[in-house]
């Protein structure tokens, strides 16, 4: 048992439902107790979805507990089949129902005899994987199922498209800024002369999946969903894939370079000439994206050397760390992710970019880390935003868990060249607001808050401050005051000083790099 107040990634069935309900005309039936269909609320409210979420529950109640589901699940499947004529029905177990150990595969087999739709059992272990891993697994499972089916029927089409084309794998409902990212990615590929073969799971029909192998290559914009499917397609159909996300100018340039290489594998045969995207990248970097110029401008000079802490899913946290360090000259004191399953890769990505790496699913650990470091800005999830609120540090939200604010009606991609503009805004505004907030402090204005001592759970050192030193401390701007207090106390402790005077304060200051 674990005492838990909050979690970054949801339970496995959420991942399965995200994939199933993103495909077009697929219905998911949850084998779940009453009230477990909260996914419908989330989708309808946070995404302001206009249509009924294609998820229903086959309710597990006392009767089911006593005598098993019997025909209930099968009847629910055939009923949905008749009512809504979906192409496929995905039977989704939940953590509760998986303990019942009913033979769901048997229900699926029986139901497929009567129903016209394909019935699939989502195969994930609810006690071992989380939402993200389950979404990856389910997408892989569905892709495999329909490609194998097409192969058996002899309807699979493996001939490459005439012109270069790509699949985008991993755009789904409830994904962080997924809709905007998808549009930006389509535009980016379009400008490179690459057509989109398919986008899965979002909005695709399952019967079209048989054409997936016709693309020249696959793009997996987020490591959290789509890697397994892409790996399968590479192994079985020899399709190469790009899994480094085009977030930030450097990453986007890399991304385009990878595409150039992949296109040129076939270009001389199909197009009669090789492609070269150098000019495109230069043009975009110089003129379309403002991010490069922004980093060069005086504004960004002010940010140089400022400290930040980054936390989020593996894709976004790693990319944002890279942008902050390499494109804006900001110091990242700590980068972290809650994607424990992708820890190795994350470490590799942020190696040499930050002072420390933290990999945890416990938000209090992240909170303590932030309180200890006291960065000038945080880039994290909604949870970090609230941690920031409590200790007066501004925060830019860069990653899921999602919130209604992460579904803005306006165009806000994180990917590609427009994405780099958006990220510049986000980063700049976070720091800038922090400064504005503290300007009154700098001029010794209305400081009614007293001394800034708001550690989340950092150990306090019990050392006396002389009244003079205390008033001196109050003159220091709020945003560095906590840090100076701590440094001074640390210095005093090291030198066995029991009372801090003004002299001690300045001695400490000289000693440290402040």
């Amino acid at each position, binding site marked *: *048992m*674990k*005492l*838990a*107040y*909050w*979690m970054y990634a*949801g*339970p*496995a*069935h*959420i991942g399965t439902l995200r994939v199933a309900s993103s495909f077009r005309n697929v219905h998911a039936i949850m084998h*779940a*107790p*009453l*009230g*477990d*269909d*909260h996914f*419908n*609320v*989330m989708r*309808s*409210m946070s995404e*302001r*979805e*206009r*249509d*009924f*979420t294609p998820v*229903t*529950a*086959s*309710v*597990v*109640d*006392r009767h089911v*507990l006593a005598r098993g589901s019997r025909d209930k699940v099968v009847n*629910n499947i055939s009923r949905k089949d008749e*009512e*809504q004529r979906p192409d496929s029905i995905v039977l989704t177990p*939940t*953590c*509760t129902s998986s*303990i*019942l150990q009913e033979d769901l595969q048997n229900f699926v087999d029986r139901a497929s005899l009567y129903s016209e739709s394909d019935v699939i059992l989502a195969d994930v272990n*609810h*006690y*071992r994987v*989380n939402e993200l891993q389950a979404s990856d697994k389910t997408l892989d499972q569905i892709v495999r199922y329909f490609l194998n089916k097409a192969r058996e029927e002899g309807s699979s089409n493996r001939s490459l498209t005439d012109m270069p084309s790509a699949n985008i794998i991993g755009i789904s409902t409830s994904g962080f800024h997924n809709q905007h990212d998808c549009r930006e990615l389509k535009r980016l590929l379009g400008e490179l002369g690459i057509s989109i073969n398919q986008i899965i799971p979002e909005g695709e029909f399952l019967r079209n999946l048989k054409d997936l192998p016709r693309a020249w290559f696959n793009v997996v914009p987020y490591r959290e969903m789509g890697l397994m499917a892409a790996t399968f397609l590479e192994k079985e159909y020899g399709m190469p894939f790009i899994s480094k996300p085009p977030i930030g100018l450097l990453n986007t340039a890399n991304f385009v370079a990878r595409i150039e290489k992949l296109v040129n594998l076939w270009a001389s045969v199909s197009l009669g000439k090789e492609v070269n995207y150098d000019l495109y990248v230069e043009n975009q970097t110089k003129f379309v994206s403002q991010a490069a110029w922004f980093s060069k401008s005086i504004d960004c000079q002010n940010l140089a050397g400022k400290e930040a802490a980054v936390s989020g899913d593996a894709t976004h946290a790693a990319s944002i760390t890279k942008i902050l360090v390499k494109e804006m000259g900001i110091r990242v004191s700590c980068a972290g992710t809650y994607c424990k399953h992708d820890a190795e890769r994350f470490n590799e990505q942020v190696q040499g970019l930050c002072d420390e790496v933290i990999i945890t699913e416990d938000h209090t650990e992240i909170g303590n880390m932030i309180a200890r470091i006291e960065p000038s800005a945080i880039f994290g999830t909604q*949870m970090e935003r*609230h941690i920031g*609120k409590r200790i007066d540090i501004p925060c830019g939200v860069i990653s899921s868990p999602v919130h209604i604010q992460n579904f803005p009606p306006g165009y806000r991609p994180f990917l590609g060249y427009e994405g780099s503009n958006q990220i510049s805004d986000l980063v700049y505004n976070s720091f800038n607001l922090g400064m504005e907030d503290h300007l009154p402090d700098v001029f010794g204005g209305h400081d009614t808050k007293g001394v800034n001592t708001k550690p989340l759970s950092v150990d306090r050192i019990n050392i006396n401050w002389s009244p003079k030193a205390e008033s001196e401390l109050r003159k220091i701007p709020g945003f560095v005051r906590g840090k100076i207090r701590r440094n001074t106390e640390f210095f005093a402790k090291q030198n066995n000083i029991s009372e801090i005077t003004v002299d001690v304060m300045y001695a400490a200051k000289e000693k440290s790099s402040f």
Partner: protein
Amino acid sequence: MKTSETLAFECETGNYHTFCPISCVAWLYQKIEDSFFLVVGTKTCGYFLQNALGVTIFAEPRYAMAELEEGDISAKLNDQRELERICLQIKNDRNPCVIFWIGTCTTEIIKMDLEGIAPILEKRLGIPIVVARANGLDYAFTQGEDTVLAAMAHRCPEYKHYAEQESIEHATLVKNSSNSKDISQKKVLTKSNLVLFGSLPSSVASQLNLELKRQSVPVSGWLPSQRYNELPHLGKGVYVCGVNPFLSRTATTLMRRRKCQLVGAPFPIGPDGTRAWIEKICSIFNIKAEGLEERENQIWKKNKDYIQILGGKSVFFMGDNLLEVSIARFLIRCGMTVYEIGIPYMDKRYQSAELSFLQHTCEKMKKPSPRIVEKPDNYSQVQRMHELKPHLAITGMAHANPLEARNIDTKWSVEFTFAQIHGSSNARDVLELVTRPLRRKDGFTSNSRSLSKQTLGN
């Protein structure tokens, strides 16, 4: 249309959307100030709570999950040891006066003996541990509160019958007879010993207290009280009355286990309900209620603007929180036509006074009796709504946006659970909620009748 037909009850498949009953911790931890709620369940329960309760989760709430892991499910780990470790941590961090264990579907299925472990740990830790099984296998949404209150009813101190009590009081009276006013007040209290049950915000509770005090019926206590150690005395000779329609289990427990006498009344929702509620309580104590009619009329008059909007409009309750019958009855009295009252569970005995009041109201307002659909089927309900085209659907959040896109105005039902809707003075709050979708200016999407993206079917 015939108006005198009797109420029609139906029961559908139970494929409907509602909140999991563990959501009751959201309002109960705020109500019982010195409590801590520990939900013993899985990631699914935790994810539901953190999403449904939104920002409260960031405010260091006094509730948490004891998240079950694979080892707990396969009984590799010892339940008692695990719970002890977690409760000790809670005791050290928060020092609550009581810990509530909320049992979930998973603890039911793996048959974790929460009721058996609780007394052992209670002794060891020195904190009362109350167990409530608020799970989705048996209950819907607000019924979670019912299970918690029923469990709390066992913890209320025993009430001594007033003959005994009086003699004790007499003794104290002789001892310190300086304050005679205090004594006479106590006498009234013991003679008409009324305990109200149902969790309400303290301001609403005191409003209801005041309403009864005006009729000289003092309320001697509430279940739940503001603090755990202020629980009311229960026993033979205590009258109990519910303020919410979903408390049938609590009512049963109070009657059967604590030997209290239940006052069956309509619920104090709307000025009509509040008046009927007070009248019924007064009649139990042989008191002639005074000034209620004027007071009710006053409220109707004060809310004429809102009632005008509702007159002649129709409403459809999809059903998810058990408040449906009372609110429907109030809205019929406001001149609305109710097509259907969906409801998760219908206790005809506990709600009998409310049901006959509903029928009476229909006759009085010359409105057709609505059909009452227990364990509704949301899919069929949406089909019926397409035919009936109600002016307003009162529904859960899963259906609200899709219905709006199909040009059916909606009000989320959850808001009725969290808003202050009890007593005459809060009638306006209910009307405010119900009229809000109807007050929005129409016409800014004049060219597109429906904003649904789906072209075929519904």
